[in-house]
């Protein structure tokens, strides 16, 4: 089964195509990295996959044919948006309550245990937590929904190296527990050890998609970073200047 399938998917804002002619099949049971420079169309693709926005062209389905944004899709996908938006004036405990109320499944014991482990005081307001704690709280809420697919948009962009490492460790543990993960990033280094499927987007188009091992072998590159850089240089000539 594929966790996300798109065919001819496109999204236009005004006269500009943020994403076009995107045809993908992202396999289940893996960590998939969506990589590309800022403004490449990563967030657009993720917003379409979670149903926050509606395609201008083509179609997108999730988890074996469910329309993106449909009740069955929302139920099984947890999404952590860019900059991990939380209600800043609610406490961590309130955020757990709200998320539990808004979903059919919620593993409250897991959420509470995770907060304790992370040293996040339940009575502390979300807005008063550090950036790393806010990211971890958002991730904890998402995982406690027991999703089949976890989608993360630039989850570590704002985090310091330690928070980044801790966050990715949680993602890897979730993946090992059977959750499919799709995450976007413009930073390649933290994806190296984690991702086994790669999608490279630049200037609104998919440039490369496939299993990391296959891609590395086919293109004769030693690492994900080199592979990505090589392709980004090919497709965005202005970078090489």
């Amino acid at each position: 089964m594929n966790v996300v399938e798109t065919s001819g998917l496109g999204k236009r804002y005004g006269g500009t195509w943020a994403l076009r002619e995107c045809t993908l099949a992202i396999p289940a049971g893996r960590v998939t990295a969506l990589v590309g420079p800022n403004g490449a169309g990563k967030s657009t693709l993720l917003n379409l996959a979670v149903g926050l926005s509606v395609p201008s062209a083509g179609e997108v389905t999730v988890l074996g044919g469910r329309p993106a944004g449909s009740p069955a899709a929302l139920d099984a996908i947890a999404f952590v948006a860019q900059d991990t938006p939380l209600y800043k004036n609610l406490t961590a405990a309130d955020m757990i309550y709200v998320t539990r109320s808004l979903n059919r499944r919620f593993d409250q014991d897991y959420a509470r245990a995770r907060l304790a482990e992370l040293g996040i005081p339940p009575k502390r307001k979300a807005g008063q937590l550090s950036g790393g704690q806010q990211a971890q709280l958002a991730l904890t809420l998402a995982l406690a929904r027991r999703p089949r697919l976890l989608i993360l948009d630039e989850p570590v962009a704002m985090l310091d190296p330690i928070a980044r490492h801790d966050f990715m460790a949680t993602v890897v543990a979730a993946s090992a527990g059977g959750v499919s993960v799709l995450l976007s990033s413009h930073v390649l280094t933290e994806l190296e050890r984690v991702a086994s499927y790669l999608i490279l987007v630049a200037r609104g188009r998919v440039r490369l998609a496939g299993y990391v091992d296959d891609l590395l072998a086919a293109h004769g590159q030693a690492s994900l970073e080199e592979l990505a850089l090589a392709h980004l240089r090919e497709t965005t000539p202005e970078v090489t200047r």
Partner: protein
Amino acid sequence: MTALTRSGHPDGDDTQLRPVPWRRMAGVTWRQHRYPLAGVAVLLGGLAVWLWIIGRPLHRAWTAAAACHPAAASACQALIGSFNAAATSNVMSDKGPGGVLLQVLPALIGAFAGAPVLAREMEAGTFRYAWTQGFGRWRWALAKLVLLAVALAALTAAFGVLVSWYFQPYGGPQDLYRNSSFGDLFSLREVTFPAWTLAAFTIGVLAGMLIRRVVPAIAATLTASAGLAVATAGLLREHYLTPLVTSNPAPPSTLWIISQWWTRDGRFVFGSPPFSLINQFCSAPPPGRSKNPPFGTFAQCLAPHGYTQWTSYQPPSRFWPFQWIEGGWLLALSVLLIAAAIWLVRRRAA
């Protein structure tokens, strides 16, 4: 690290999902909006205490005057006089300080409780959290808006009952204070106050969804709500039902007078008699009348010369029909605005 205890995602029931129950939004809405709701409750509670304090002496004077028999006795006249003195120095009239304060309440409540509901989600980006939960985005918006609207309507209706209690002496026995029951704080009674608050709240919600920023949405809501209230009071309200017309030269002051005009030989002559005509026919006051006659006596002194004064008016019996008409169209407007906001939530692209 705490492991995710996955007992396997229950695949079987995925195709026929039971939606997350509506009632769960009650706790969510309360946790997110308890401060604005508590603010409205404290504000109205404080004003209610104040209204109660200034209303009690008025009610005591009214009860004493109304219970006094025979009304013509000098002791009773003194009681009626003291009631009228209390009633005419009323701080709660449309132009009194209390009345002005109260009349901005619906717009204020609407702006500060309504505008941030969706604008803050858009401004802070939390709509990306809220709209991707299992509850579903249009259900989330509908449940939240209906719950807040009902809570605000209940609070303001209770306050409107108190406002009507305060004005009870004014619509009292005929021989006491006379005033049009439409006159004071028509829009703050138990029907119209919740209706106006709902309208302002929904204007705020929609403005927040369109403008997507809290402060400009509040400003837009205050402007739009105040404009609607002024237009309704000045232009719309008198047309709810066709006014009645009388040629009674001295219409009672309990009527809401819409307009007056004069005819002679069955034809319109003027809206109000020119000074030259008054000087000519009304300069000598009729016996037993004061020098500055109230308007009705112009009609009396001009009548022998073929002039007839016509008055179009709304009778006091139409007070409640007018309350329900105003409440009705405001409720319809509120439903329409909420529907528009939910439609925008449904189609809004991230």
